[in-house]
């Protein structure tokens, strides 16, 4: 038996961080807090399921991801059509390429990935870059790369075509690449 009090306080310490991530995905504070609450309760109700197979953080994050997917599914009915963020986004990508289709600038060397991924500040900057993405682009990107959903599922949940999803994912990656390049690798 694990000590419930300790687990409880460990989970509470994680709450702000979990809410931030739920918020990045859901873009709605109340929904984000509810999803985190559900996830924490689920973990507290069955502490035995977390049998040290992973770190507590990894385990709770996994539970939270399932809760968020539930919220996204439940929210399908109420979803409003968002304005198309397309035009300015495409212009931003256009500006990276010359008329002949070559890159205008050589992408900077980013150094060793393993070393980068061990630095906390890198993740803080990545998080800030995610916050700056347009809402719809961010939602699709987070669904794909954070919740690790397949494109078909994302299309179904958001009622968009697969080519639309690929375009949004491409824009998100281009934007994040620029943002990281400027704010992390360019420092």
């Amino acid at each position, binding site marked *: 038996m694990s000590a419930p009090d300790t687990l409880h306080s460990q989970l509470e*310490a*994680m709450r*702000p*961080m*979990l809410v*931030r*991530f739920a918020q990045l995905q859901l873009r709605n504070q109340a929904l984000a807090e509810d999803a985190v609450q559900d996830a924490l309760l689920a973990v507290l109700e069955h502490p035995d399921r977390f049998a040290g197979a992973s770190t507590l*953080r990894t385990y709770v*994050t996994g539970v939270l991801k399932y809760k968020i997917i539930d919220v996204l599914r439940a929210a399908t009915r109420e979803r409003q059509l968002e304005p198309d963020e397309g035009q300015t986004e495409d212009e931003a990508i256009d500006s990276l*390429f010359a008329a*002949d*289709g*070559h*890159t205008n600038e*050589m*992408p*900077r*060397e*980013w150094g060793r*990935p393993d070393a*980068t*991924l061990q630095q*906390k500040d*890198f*993740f*803080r900057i*990545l*998080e800030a870059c995610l916050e700056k993405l347009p809402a719809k682009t961010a939602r699709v990107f987070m669904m*794909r*790369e*954070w919740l*690790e959903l397949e*494109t078909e599922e994302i299309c179904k949940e958001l009622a968009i075509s*697969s080519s639309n*999803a*690929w375009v949004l*994912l*491409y824009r998100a*990656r*281009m934007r*994040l*690449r620029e943002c*990281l*390049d400027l704010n992390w690798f360019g420092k």
Partner: protein
Amino acid sequence: MDKLKPTCREVHRLVSEGMDRDLSLVERTRMRLHLVVCDACTRFSGQMDLLRKAMRGFPTDDTK
């Protein structure tokens, strides 16, 4: 678009889409042949891998 030689613009897009769907044999071949000779796209491709790895590592231990 030159039918034989893909541009960086096309290859950037293929690198990204290849993370979300299976590319056709033709697309894969075009992309790979281009990557062999293009440092810019090769770097871009590596950066996309890093981005994916980073997203799957979220959230990190920053609960301080």
